[in-house]
């Protein structure tokens, strides 16, 4: 087990710099999730930690040891890929045992470790099958098994659930999280799915265009996003962000060039909420309603901008009707329109 430290880490491909000097300290045993849109440099960062990509600048330390020039196999890390990458010409047992390729354990100890991993991952009955005869979820479990048997200093996951269907993804999220709790090994996990980030991470690292925008516990990022991008990226549906004018209780929608940007989550913007205690009131015609069961999403427009509010389940307004939705005091995030950085709350 080990901590991972990134110091001013830079990656360039030819003349293009894709990682712009990022700093991060992952504590021993921590589950860190890198999240961000496609192409923001998550995989590149992870692959540099694994040793599959050369470091162009800065340093990577694993367990305190500088590993910039160390071969992947000497870093004692395990990696699970989006496409599973389990060897098709080997059985499940051989695939998992391959994780022990460099291990100095005896034959029986190795076999015992493979059995143990298979038991934990519910693969025992499949040990003598080949990958072609496995489902996607089973294949990914084999890949995890291969990573697990090594007792690595850290696990690296690159979008391991992206190829699974929604139901299996939800199940595997829980399994991986449980595995982490049991093994206590440091995990660096990459995903573009903010739900995965929220549900699994001890700490979320939000990336955009080769920069780290914010790193923090899931609820901390949800409650106190540092900028508009993070605010909109974390949480579904995305936070409403609109230009406003006014102060304190008197915030009102304003056109472009307004002195402030206000952000309010759809869950905090309630149709028919009481006027007193409201920090922001928005009125406009309804364009769509989406009943979800516990609540209904109400899409409406204010000054030409589409917003989403929530309504109680059985009080659904009709399309075209004027609705007023309000956010209570303390629920409105304020951002500087120029820098898009958070400036406070209203």
């Amino acid at each position: 087990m080990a901590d991972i430290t990134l110091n001013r880490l830079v990656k360039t491909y030819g003349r293009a710099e894709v990682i712009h000097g990022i700093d991060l300290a992952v504590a021993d045993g921590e589950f860190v999730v890198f999240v961000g849109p496609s192409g923001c440099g998550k995989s590149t960062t992870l692959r540099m930690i694994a040793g599959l990509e050369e470091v162009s600048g800065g340093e990577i330390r694993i367990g305190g040891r500088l590993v910039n020039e160390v071969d992947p196999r000497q870093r004692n890390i395990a990696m699970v890929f989006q496409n599973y990458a389990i060897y098709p010409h080997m059985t499940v047992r051989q695939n998992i045992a391959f994780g022990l390729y460099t291990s100095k354990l005896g034959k029986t100890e190795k076999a015992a470790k493979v059995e143990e991993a298979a038991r934990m991952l519910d693969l025992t009955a499949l040990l003598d099958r080949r990958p072609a005869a496995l489902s996607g979820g089973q294949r990914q479990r084999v890949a995890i098994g291969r990573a697990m048997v090594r007792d690595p200093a850290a696990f690296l996951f690159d979008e391991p659930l992206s190829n699974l269907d929604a139901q299996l993804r939800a199940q595997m999220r829980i399994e991986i999280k449980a595995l982490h709790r049991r093994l206590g090994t440091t995990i660096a996990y990459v995903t573009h799915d903010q739900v995965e980030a929220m549900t699994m991470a001890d700490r979320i690292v939000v990336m955009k265009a080769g920069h780290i925008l914010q790193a923090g516990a899931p609820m901390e990022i949800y409650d106190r996003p540092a900028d508009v991008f993070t605010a909109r990226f974390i949480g579904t549906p995305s936070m409403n962000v609109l230009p406003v004018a006014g102060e304190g209780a008197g915030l009102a929608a304003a056109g472009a060039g307004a002195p402030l940007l206000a952000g309010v989550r759809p869950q905090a913007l309630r149709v028919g909420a009481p006027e007193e205690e409201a920090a922001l009131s928005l009125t406009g015609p309804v364009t769509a309603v989406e009943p979800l069961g516990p609540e209904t999403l109400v899409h409406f427009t204010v000054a030409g901008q589409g917003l989403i509010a929530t309504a109680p389940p059985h009080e659904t307004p009709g399309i075209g009707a004027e609705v007023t939705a309000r956010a209570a005091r303390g629920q409105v995030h304020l951002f500087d329109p120029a820098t898009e950085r958070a400036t406070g709350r209203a």
Partner: protein
Amino acid sequence: MATADTPAPRLRFARIRPGRIITWTLLMIGGLLMITPLLFMFSTSLKPASQIYDLRLIPASPTLANYAEVLSDGRFLRWFLNSSFVAITVTAANCFFDSLVGYTLAKFRFRGRQVVFIAILSTLMIPTEMLVIPWYLMSAQFGWLDSYWGIMFPGMMTAFGTFLMKQFFETVPDDFLEAARIDGLNEFTIWWRIAMPLVTPALSALAIFTFLGNWTAFFWPLIVTTSKELYTLPVGLTSFAVEQAIQWEKIMTGAALATLPTLALFLALQRFIVRGVMLAGLKD
């Protein structure tokens, strides 16, 4: 039940379209053209010398005497073994070297990669006939004339095989190799244990082509060998033709026996030429 079953055969016949019939007919004619010389070869090998110009396909008085004679002739066995040794060695060498170079060209980025690749490809454009003189001069210089190595060296690695293997290795996803790199395999072991098993279809095809090419090679072995003990089968068989009178029945018997190893090889390897092996370890 019975009534529900009856329409099925009619449907199946209805599906045979006229286009299919034409295709099948053409293929059948092509197949017949291909197999006729082979049939005559077998047929002639079963005829006594007096009847070989009797062009009936079914021999009037079939005999295995030719086989007995050819097989008991020590020279035939010697040439058969020579050919086997040469073809097997060259095939193994090609499977090894062509794959190694093809893999390197497909999966590593290094300075001069394109230059090397183009240099290899350009040798594909030179016909064997033009190379025979340089090969001969080279063999003479190094004292390789009239030796096994002399027969084999030009074919130990081929541009075609390298090209074929490079194209196949390019279809092997990098994820497999990277996973192996993290699992702690060194680069040679990654090639041997991970990449090679993933290209067995290409490897089998390469093995068949190389074996066939060397098994039937005539021109270069004829030129480079002088002693009869070093003749390969095709060179040896034609020497039947020039001793005294042309002994067609013996040539045909030798040729018929010579097809057996290639048939055996093809049957042994064809099951590896199965597509889709590689993708099984990835997402569907």
